[in-house]
């Protein structure tokens, strides 16, 4: 395979002779930036909100992970941490706020109540899990989860953000460099080019 294709398929950091010049893929660099400076949205509803607050303050410092910028408005956030029980009265509002966030956005469901209704699962007014209203990326169990558990969830989310592909997946049968003769051309494009 040619060098160009290898570089595209396997991203690496290549230092040239001058320092401060690094080559890598856009996926890597944007995902790295995104995952390490997430702006959480304080959607603290109930008791888990207090543990979320505790994790933001001095002892369990969420600023170590770059997430200390808790914004109260959804327009400026990309992560919604649903901490607490969601009930039928609150669910439309939850959906509205989720829709007001701009892409890319992620949702963490913190605590047993947000995951599945928790200790109030058989209440007449309780929604059994926030994933019935918004799509959830990471579930954190616990009642309430310790700040360390919240951090483990945030690290899982960082791992998930880093898998995000900035460039979309190529469709089947599409070759990256159709003009490259070193490889036997296959797929619809080259045959279409021959036909045309």
């Amino acid at each position, binding site marked *: 395979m040619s060098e160009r294709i290898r570089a595209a398929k396997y991203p690496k950091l290549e230092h040239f002779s001058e320092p401060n010049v690094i080559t890598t893929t856009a996926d890597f660099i944007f995902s790295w930036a995104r995952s390490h400076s997430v702006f959480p949205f304080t959607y603290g509803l109930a008791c888990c909100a207090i543990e979320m607050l505790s994790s933001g303050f001095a002892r369990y410092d969420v600023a170590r992970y770059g997430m200390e910028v808790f914004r109260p408005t959804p327009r400026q956030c990309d992560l919604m941490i649903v901490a607490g029980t969601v009930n*039928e*009265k609150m*669910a439309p509002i939850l959906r509205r706020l989720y829709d007001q966030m701009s892409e890319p956005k992620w949702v963490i469901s913190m605590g047993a109540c947000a995951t599945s209704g928790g200790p109030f699962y058989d209440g*007449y*007014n309780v*929604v059994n899990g926030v994933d*019935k*209203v918004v799509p959830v990326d990471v579930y954190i169990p616990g009642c309430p989860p310790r700040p360390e558990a919240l951090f483990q969830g945030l690290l899982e989310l960082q791992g998930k953000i880093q898998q995000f592909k900035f460039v979309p997946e190529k469709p089947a049968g599409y070759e990256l460099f159709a003009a490259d003769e070193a490889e036997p051309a296959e797929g619809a494009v080259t045959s279409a080019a021959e036909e045309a």
Partner: protein
Amino acid sequence: MGLVVGSNPMSMDAIAALLVERFAGDLDDVRIQEPDTIVARCAREQLRGVAARLKADAEVGYETLNWVAGVDRRTAFESVYHVYSWKTNTWMELHVELPKGKPEVDTVCDVWPAANWHEREAWDMVGIRYLGHPDLRRILLKDDFIGHPLRKDYVDLAENHPHV
């Protein structure tokens, strides 16, 4: 200055005797629940008059309402009022029985302003209608909730659960 707790301390027996004497016919079944609560029953029609007189009484004025609860007793409903007397530092629990088919009773909002939200909650949860209430609407549940959940015959309806 101002509000003092227990300016007229009386023994529980003395309070019970006073209530039996002054409210003869209106307050039935006056009992003492140790250490400091009087439990009594009142008829539905007399509630408003009794409430006003209880509050205005010179020796045991029950001036503060603590809470109002609605209870579904399967054969009847009940509205329970818990009031506090600053002068004697004692409490009173007043039970008002309401018929099963027509759970309505006069409001006591003009006697005890605190009753406003408590009666709304009793309406919301148990379905007891308080006649004359300035703003009787649901307080804890969403506005289009169907039914009164704390009734014993409440069945979970699908309309109340759009998010399933």
